């Protein structure tokens, strides 16, 4: 890098005529990236730091971990527990179904148009989350939804049998609408990365397709699949808008709990509110961290 800088200053000297001292150029570069850091600082980092500091602040102003200790209160545990349950379920189910769909439109043998259609639709569906998605499912599986009515025609009363759109099952079902497409979009390039020659070499050496998948393809894809499932977990864990729109914000979910805390101190303890928020950040950070490690590993094999 040093040599390139020297060349650059030489070039700059020749094009700008007068001799400009290198420090001036350095400043110009830093000026170019300054707005980025300023923006990120003010609107991403600072708000988080505020929460972080307030979460370890005691009522009298000293530093304490009390707020975190109180995270094990029933309300918080319930909310976190439900969030984790939904996130695990949609991560695993979304991962599996998304993988199968991605397989079907790539190696599975469906013609090309199916694949472009799937990728475009996946892009749209993963952005459809929030109010429109919640509304669509209410119209479909709500108490007077079209499919609910259809089931009644066949004599099955969904809601009386225990199903409810406004429950763990219902929410998971709705979340899958943006989880599955996310999996499809991320795993397709990985499946493309499976070199055709690997399958041919395996076949040539006598392996059946099943043996090839078990010994080569799945192991090679595993870091990608696991990593993306973890991404899905994080995605679900931090989702707010869809759940809010579906339940009016009155369901016991970690993000909804934080939302309630913003509107008013429902936890009767501001410090705890910050801890709940930071707890979420910590869980998200861990999942992104694991995801990037697995991503790097899969890149090494799929390059």
């Amino acid at each position, binding site marked *: 890098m040093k040599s390139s800088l020297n060349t650059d200053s030489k070039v700059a000297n020749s094009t700008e005529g007068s001799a400009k001292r290198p420090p001036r150029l350095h400043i110009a570069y830093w000026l170019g990236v300054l707005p980025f850091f300023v923006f990120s600082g003010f609107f991403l980092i600072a708000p988080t730091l505020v929460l972080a500091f307030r979460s370890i602040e005691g009522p009298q102003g000293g530093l304490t971990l009390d707020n975190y200790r109180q995270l094990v209160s029933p309300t918080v545990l319930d909310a976190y527990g439900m969030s984790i349950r939904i996130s695990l379920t949609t991560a695993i189910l979304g991962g599996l179904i998304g993988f199968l769909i991605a397989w079907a439109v790539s190696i599975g043998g469906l013609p090309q148009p199916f694949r472009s259609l799937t990728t475009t639709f996946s892009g749209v569906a993963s952005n459809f989350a929030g109010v429109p998605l919640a509304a669509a499912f209410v119209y479909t599986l709500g108490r007077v939804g079209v499919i609910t009515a259809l089931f009644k025609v066949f004599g099955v009363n969904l809601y009386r049998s225990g199903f409810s759109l406004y429950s763990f099952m219902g929410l998971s079902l709705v979340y899958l609408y943006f989880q599955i497409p996310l999996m499809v979009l991320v795993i397709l390039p990985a499946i493309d990365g499976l*070199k055709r*020659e*690997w399958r*041919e*070499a*395996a*076949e*040539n*050496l*006598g*392996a*059946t397709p099943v*043996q090839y998948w078990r*010994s*080569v393809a799945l*192991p*090679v894809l595993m870091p990608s699949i696991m990593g993306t499932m973890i991404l899905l977990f994080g995605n679900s864990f931090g989702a707010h808008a869809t759940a809010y729109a579906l339940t009016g914000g009155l369901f016991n979910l970690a993000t909804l709990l934080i939302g309630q805390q913003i509107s008013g101190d429902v936890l009767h303890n501001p410090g705890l509110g910050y801890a709940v928020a930071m707890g979420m950040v910590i869980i998200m950070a861990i999942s992104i961290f694991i995801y990037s490690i697995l991503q790097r590993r899969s890149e*090494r*094999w*799929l390059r």
Partner: protein
Amino acid sequence: MAYLTLSNISKQFGDTYAVRDFNLDVEKGEFVSFLGPSGCGKTTTLRMVAGFETPTNGAITLGGAEITDKAPNQRNMGMIFQSYALFPNMTVAQNIGFGLRVRKLSKSEIDDRVKEMVSLVNLEKHVDKYPYQLSGGQQQRVSLARALAIRPDVLLLDEPLSALDAKIRVSLRAQIREIQKRLGITAIFVTHDQEEALSISDRIVVMYDGNVEQVGTPFDIYNFPQTPFVANFVGSLNTAAAEVVDPEKGLLTMDDVQLVSAAKMDGLRKGDKVRIAIRPERFSFASDGKKANVLDCQIENITFLGSVVRVHILIGKTKFTMDTFNYPSLALPQIGDRNQVTCSKEAVLVLNEENSNGQGPKG
């Protein structure tokens, strides 16, 4: 009966023929190369032998049994790919043992065979490494060991050296040939590099645009090319337009310069237009009176290529290149000199482009 036969093999993709009417008998233990430019059908033919493509027409037999429609994982052939195709999630040892695990050999048998293969390709120090930790040449050697581990009936190599550095290419092709000879395995080698094909093959199949141009030993292919394409593709060649003067005596005229050729000119009559071809190394300055052709020329340029000196000469109105071996006491003419070059009548090849059926002295 030949060990591996391809009879009337053709392959169509839609309306285009990738391979047309391919016939070949390969003996056991023979090393055959498919040589040709990109798109000539050589890889497609190899893949049909491997079972990754099904011929549109024709049959393939191995040891007397027809295998045309057999699944690729039932053919017991070892394939080496241009991109090595090593399984990235397995070590060298695991890669080599893959075919054996599939065949459900016992662990001790697998270990022994893997060890044998590893020492065959000299990779003892790398057995536990992963492909991404190896160089291209090392990866290709693992690929070779993996294919040989299953004791294949035929070894198929699809441009295995094209992705490697020049020096490694030369040493590895010699290693491949040496191992093949030692084990007596029948091999088919696809390449676009004529030097490669010439140096290691028992026979070469030259292909162009889906057709077989010529089948023969390297010596035959080089010295007696049967079609203009083969003459041009294999080795360098001077060609020029000429007219037949006397087909029986082998006399031709090119730019008012008389040439004598030993080529059989059946079917040609006085006045027919043909193309003649002379290899650069067949010219010499020596005037020992034994050569049939003594031609006046003008020296246009001299290029020094290391072991060879390339002289650009003008005979009549046509430019020719002449290659002569370099040695310290070589007395070269000056640029601009008028001089004389000689070549034998066997050196003058006659290529009748209309029939695509050029003839050399031995036909």
